[in-house]
């Protein structure tokens, strides 16, 4: 009788061909802040830790609706958009019940953050932060306002393309991903060193797709789809 080899899921490594290097001189702040020594490999077993723990109880009823979750006396200004997509692993399996946190500038390109001194108006009805716990198919869905472009200090007349920040955990401590979603056809992408920090052939995955059907109700909001792929698991024979 053949021995049964037990299988244990093993988290696939970070695919460095898909991720930016730590030091990318076009993005000036990386020069003094990115680690310079080679990363030290860690035993794969340490990547199996699951964390953190959270649940539906942690998510507020308006956390997914940025047009309402900070409204004081009306609706925020700007183009309403639905941003939706699936969180998948590298094998195409949905990552269910995983936390998606987003934050973004308002329609004028201004962040609520106190250190943002860009001379553009704040919107009293818009915070720009949201959360969602993915469903069984790995899907998330936010209703928000299209963020504006804004200048930053990287080089003369540097402007960030319109973008939404995303933070995800996936099923493991080591599947952590913080990224940014961009909009199709944005002419500022060609000039943005943060976008270009991701390798060619990979950075295009950061650009959402226009999907006029995504918003559901016709004539209410523009729809953008953005799927996110986290590190997957491989079934490998357990070491004796």
């Amino acid at each position, binding site marked *: 009788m053949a021995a049964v080899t037990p299988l244990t899921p093993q988290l696939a490594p970070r695919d460095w061909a898909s991720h930016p290097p730590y030091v990318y001189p076009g993005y000036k702040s990386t020069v003094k*802040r990115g680690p310079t020594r080679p990363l030290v490999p860690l035993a794969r077993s340490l990547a199996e830790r699951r964390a953190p723990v959270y649940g539906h109880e942690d998510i507020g009823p308006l956390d997914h609706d940025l047009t309402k979750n900070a409204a004081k006396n009306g609706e925020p200004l700007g183009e309403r958009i639905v941003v939706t997509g699936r969180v998948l692993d590298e094998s195409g399996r949905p990552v269910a019940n995983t936390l998606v946190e987003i934050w973004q500038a308002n329609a004028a390109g201004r962040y609520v953050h106190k250190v943002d001194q860009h001379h553009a108006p704040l919107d009293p009805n818009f915070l*720009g932060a949201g959360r969602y716990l993915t469903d069984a198919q790995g899907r998330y869905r936010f209703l928000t306002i299209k963020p504006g472009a804004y200048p930053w200090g990287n080089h003369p007349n540097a402007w960030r393309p319109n973008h939404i920040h995303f933070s995800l955990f996936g099923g493991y401590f080591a599947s952590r991903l913080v990224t940014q979603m961009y909009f199709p056809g944005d002419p500022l992408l060609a000039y943005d060193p943060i976008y270009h920090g991701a390798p060619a052939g990979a950075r295009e995955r950061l650009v959402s797709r226009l999907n006029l059907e995504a918003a559901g109700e016709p004539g209410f909001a523009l729809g953008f789809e953005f799927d996110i792929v986290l590190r997957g698991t491989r079934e490998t024979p357990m070491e004796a």
Partner: protein
Amino acid sequence: MALRQTPSQTVGPYFAYGLTPEQYGYDYKSLFGPVLAEPQAPGEHIRLTGRVFDGDGVPVNDAMIEILQADSRGRYVESRAEAQAAGFRGFGRCGTGTHASLHYWFDTVKPGSAGAGEAPHIDVIVMMRGTLSHAFTRVYFEDETEANARDSVLAALPAERRATLVARREAQPCGATYRFDIRMQGPKETVFFDL
């Protein structure tokens, strides 16, 4: 693998109202914060604190630190209900921009050893404006000399770099404090892992 990973991008300078809102005084609930252990959590209650330094030795005012650790018996929290019952969450998040000295801090318990060949430790994620990908590092404890000597991760490092992962214990009025500074670059660059 059928699909390729979505690339990482920087957390940027403006994460606070989305990821650490209560710490920074925004009117939005924080899902994770600097307190991992409630008073009733078993074990030695400690504070972990430190600063993040750039390649010029300047403290970083817009870094975000996340930590994951076992409880005082070396067990990792497996569910939200378990975390609530024990008063211990096992995971924390803190930015470096709310104190004049630009330190992060966590109120937690000292972790136990999670297994043979593993000294007590805390896993750390570091991100900030200027890192396009987050970095993984680890905190060990200076008063765990014997366990540290047997730890397989520490043992695999060049001896001169091990000290970058060892937190110093200080007696403070508020209780035991461990200081763990993170140096992104320079002769004492912290060890970062490919996790």
